[in-house]
C-alpha cells in the first residue's frame, strides 16, 4: 500500500517541465531527483516528500520520450501518479521502470494536501481525508503481466533465459 499527500497538477503536464532538458546529460536519477516538476513549481522538490502522490489532469507526461521524467519521479520517491490519461511513451516508460501510474478520471475529486492511499494491485484509491474511494481502470492483461514481472528488465531477462 502506498500512502502520501496529494499534489495536484493540471492537464498536459509535459516532460519538459517534469524534467527540463538541461538535466538530460545527467545519468544518475538520484542527482536529478531534486529537480522534478521544476518547470511548473521550482520549489516542488523541497516541498514534496518521498511517498507523496501526484494527482494530475489528462495526458500526463506528454512530449519528449526522456526517461529522466518518470525516472526522476521514481528516484525522488513519488509513490504514484494518478491521471485520467497518460501520454503513451510516458506510460510505457513508467510501467517499464516500476513507477506506479493509475488511470482514474474520477480521482480529480482529490484535493491538494489530502492524504491518499493507493493499492496498486487492485487499483483502489482512498482519499483518507474525505473518505472518498475511487477505482482506477485496470490495465490490459499483457501490461499487468509486465508489471507483475517487475518491469521490462525482468521481462527481458526471462525472455533471454537468464531468469
Amino acid at each position, binding site marked *: 500500500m502506498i500512502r502520501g499527500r496529494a499534489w495536484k497538477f493540471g492537464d498536459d503536464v509535459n516532460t519538459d517541465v517534469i524534467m527540463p532538458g538541461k538535466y538530460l546529460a545527467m545519468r544518475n536519477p538520484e542527482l536529478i531527483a531534486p529537480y522534478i516538476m521544476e518547470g511548473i513549481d521550482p520549489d516542488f522538490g523541497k516541498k514534496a516528500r518521498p511517498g507523496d502522490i501526484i494527482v494530475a489532469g*489528462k495526458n500526463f507526461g506528454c*512530449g519528449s520520450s526522456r526517461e529522466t521524467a518518470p525516472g526522476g519521479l521514481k528516484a525522488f520517491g513519488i509513490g504514484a501518479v494518478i491521471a485520467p490519461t497518460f501520454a503513451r511513451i510516458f506510460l510505457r516508460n513508467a510501467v517499464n521502470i516500476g513507477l506506479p501510474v493509475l488511470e482514474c478520471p474520477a480521482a480529480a475529486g482529490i484535493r491538494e494536501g489530502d492524504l491518499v492511499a493507493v493499492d496498486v494491485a487492485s487499483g483502489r484509491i482512498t482519499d483518507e481525508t474525505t473518505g472518498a474511494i475511487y477505482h482506477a481502470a485496470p490495465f490490459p492483461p499483457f501490461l499487468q503481466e509486465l508489471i507483475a514481472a517487475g518491469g521490462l528488465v525482468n521481462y527481458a531477462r526471462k525472455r533471454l533465459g537468464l531468469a
Partner: protein
Amino acid sequence: MGLTITEKILASHAGKAAVEPGEFIIARPDMVMGNDLSTAGAIGVLKQMGATKVFDPEKVVIVFDHLVPAKDIQAADLLKGVRQWVREQGIALFYDEGRHGIAHIILPEQGLALPGDLIIGGDSHSCTYGAVGAFSTGVGHTDLAGVLALGEIWLKVPASIKFTYHGTLGPWIMGKDLILATIGKIGIDGALYQAMEFRGPALATLGMSERLTMCNMAIEAGGKSGIIVPDGMTLAYVKERARRPWTVYQSDPDARYVAEYDFEITGMRPQVAKPFSPDNVVSVDEVAGTPLDQVFIGSCTNAKLEDLRIAARILRGKKAHAGTRLIVIPASTWIWNQALKEGLLEIFAEAGAAVSTPTCGACFGGHMGILGAGEVCLSTSNRNFVGRMGHPTAQSYLANPAVAAASAIKGCIAAPEEVGA
C-alpha cells in the same frame, strides 16, 4: 473488413495475417535507432538485463545528435561511453561527429527508413519516418534496451485517424502549416495512442521534406505514429537511397478509422503556435509584430535542405534585425555540405546568422542558443512548452522557415510578404 497501412505493417511484423486496434502484439523491427542520450541510457539497462550483444548489429543505427559536439565534460564522457559500446557491438551504422546529424533526418536521408518498415527509435520524434510509408514510433531508453536485447517489442495496435487535405497551397505555406493547423484543431492529445494517417489531393503535391515535417509532429498531437501511404514521390525518394528491399502497403478502401478530419487549405495563412503549447495555434497575422530576441532555424522538424533553401530565398541580400539573434543549424552533415555548395550558408552568414554544425541544440534547451529569462524566440522546431528552450519565463513561438526568415529580418513576428517575399 479492410486494413489500414498501419495495421498491415504491424501484422506483417508480428507474423499475422491481420491485426485489430487494441490488440497486443510482439513485433520484430527492421531498424532500431538510438541517439546519444537514449543509447547511453539503454547501455546501462542492457547490463541490468544481462544482455551482452544486440540482437542484430546490422539492424541498429546509432546517431549522435543531442549533445554533439560535446557541450560539456558530462556530455563528452557520455559520448565516449557510447562510442566504445558501438565498437564493442560491431555496429557499422554509426553517425559520429563528422557524419552526424539529427537522427530523424539521417535515417530517411541515408535510406535506413524504407516503406513498409517497422522502426523503433529511442526518441519521441521517431514518428518522422512514417513519411516514407513506414510504421515508426518513439520509446524511452528502457524500451530501447529491450528491443536491442530481444529484437522484438510489445506494441498495442493503434486505431487510425484519417486526415485529408484538400485545395491548393498558397505561397509560403508548408507542411509545417498543415500539421500546426491539424494539432491546433485536434489538440495536444487529440490523437493519443493513435496512428495519424495523412492523405488527400493537397498532400499528394507535397514533397518529401514537407511530409517528413508533418509526420515528425504527430507526437505533438499525442499520436503513436504518423504515416503517409507511399506514392510516386515517395518511391523516387527511396529508390536513390535504399540499400535493401522494401514493401509498399496501401490502406484498403474499406479500412476502419476511428475519426476523419478534412482540411481545406486554399487560402490558408502561415500558422504559428504561441507559447506554451504546440496546439495553441493561430494565423501569423494574429501575432505579427511580436518583438523577438532570437530566431532559430533548426531541429528535426524544419532544418532540411528544402527548409534552408526557403529561408535563404527570403534572407538573400538582407540582414537580420539588429536586436534579433538568428541561429541556423542544418539538420545533417549531408545537408550542411549541400547548403555550403549551394551558397546557402553564405547567405545566412551575410545576413548575420550564427550558423552551426548539425545538432538538436537549442530545440531542447541543450546548447547552441538557450534562452534567458523573459526572452522571446520564434523557432522552426516542434515544442514550445515552459522551459523547453531555456529559462521557464522564456517564450517560444513555432512556425515554418519562411516565417522564421521574415521575422529575423523584421525583428518581430512577420509574414513573408512583409519583407517583400
